[in-house]
């Protein structure tokens, strides 16, 4: 299955981000998605304020990078999905 970044997967990602207490927990949640083959947490922060952590999400036939905003209160939101 190739997920539509504008559709169901993005919504699921946003919900997972809302439920997660940190980026590693979000990555673990995503790894449990049946269509997700692997998730890599990039080791760098994109240094906007608030900063962004990138997740490289690999599916069977495609892959995306999710930009996850790390808010000061500890919450996570999805800034966007893009091709790598």
């Amino acid at each position, binding site marked *: 299955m190739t997920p539509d970044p504008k559709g169901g997967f993005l919504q699921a990602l946003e919900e997972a981000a809302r439920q997660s207490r940190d980026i590693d927990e979000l990555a673990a949640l995503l790894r449990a998605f049946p269509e997700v083959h692997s998730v*890599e947490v990039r080791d760098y922060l994109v*240094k906007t*304020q608030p900063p962004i952590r990138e997740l490289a999400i690999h599916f069977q036939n495609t892959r995306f990078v999710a930009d996850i905003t790390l808010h000061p209160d500890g919450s996570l939101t999805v800034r966007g999905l893009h091709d790598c």
Partner: protein
Amino acid sequence: MAKINPITQEELRAFDSELLLQELRSRAPKKAKPITREFQACGCDDTPTVVAKHLREGETAGVPELETVPTGELIEALRDVQKVIYGTDDRLDMYEVTDAAHRASADGVVMLVNAGSITANNNGTSTIATQNFGTAYNLCPTERFRHQPITGFCSGFLVDPSLVATAAHCVENANLANVRFVFGFQMRDATTAETTVPTSEVYRGIRIIGRAIGNQGTDWCIVQLDRPVLNHRHVRIRRSGQIPNNAGVYVIGHPVGLPKKWAGGAVVRDNTPARYFVANLDTYGGNSGSPVFNAATHDVEGILVRGETDFVFNGNCRVSNVVPANGGRGEDCTRVAEFASLVPPNQHDFIPFNPAKAKVVHRNGRWKIEVDGMWLLDFGSSKAEAQQALKIIKHYKMNTQCFVGRPGPSMEFYLVNGQAPSGAMAGEDAISFNPANVQAQYINGRWKVVDGNHWIMDFDQSEAEARQALSYILRYGFRFICFVGRPGPSMTYFRI
């Protein structure tokens, strides 16, 4: 009864910095799992994968001798024993920076703020909405700057009076209209932040001149502002080549959206990536887009874009992520030579003269305008054109002749005491244009400066001259291009 700390301050500072770090890390509530440094995880980038040992890998145990030492004391001791601390605070507020060259470097640094965070006060000033840093981040009492305000989401810097450079992930066409570029958000003294600034210090972006992100780690954006910035310096950038290995660098920007900060004491740690270099700069979120200066030349070498984790929990509050000077992953800085072709060189070719001494002369069969024996203009056989040009010089009181691209200049203009000639003159051959629409474009194999569909000047293959000409048009606010003797004019000038 309070526990007595059995370790004196002197003994604490005798500990190895790695042991102090180990104890600090053991107090964090959660350990990050080892991760690899893999910039091109998706395989769309041909940069070789670099695998680095994660800083916290295997470091879970505390140091028994240090377990009773308060965390604040540990952090202070660590700062004292490390010669260079990367990941905490080499930062200084601008009022603390006394070096003239560094202060000059800081003058062109700007903060990027969401438009909704700025309120015009209808008295020539605007107020920036802020949060308290310490409250917003639940900072521990040891953290510096915790009482200061934060706002803004990125940093940037002037590379030309009308152009700001920043990181591509800070600005794109979709959010450009919602971005404001603000000068002057800094601490006036230890306790007072300048959260109200003259409205004249707030700029909008009207156009993205160039932008690149992703290819081998590059990340830059050049934005044209709504008007030229005439009261702040633009920086000088490296135009080719690479910063030397191990060169000293410093960064100026708005870490965490704080008032402007300087941070030095850093070096280039990895100079091998083609499109960026890595340095141990003390930067945080909000530093994206900050200029990274060569400490020896004060030229900008890079744009800060990515780096190490900013904060870690220490119990129930956050502290800066302290790593050794040679630890951590380092901070990535996009090389500015990547976009140097978009930035005018600004090597001005201006010749002052006294208009009162200008006169028409006939030398060796040619009509010329001379000043003190030096000729300004040559009109060949046309005495009428020479006389008309002299009338124009005296009418506007022009006293500086300016060129782009000599010999055989592609642009010629005149200034009056450093300003554009203004007004009009009867019988003038003038064509108006809208400076807000003027751009440098490559059309049919030639560089031109155009106003919409109409080209104003042609620069053949010289992008640098086209961009320099555009810079002058914007800087001086020219609205008319004027001629003497078209076609093949013997004199061209611009005015407002």
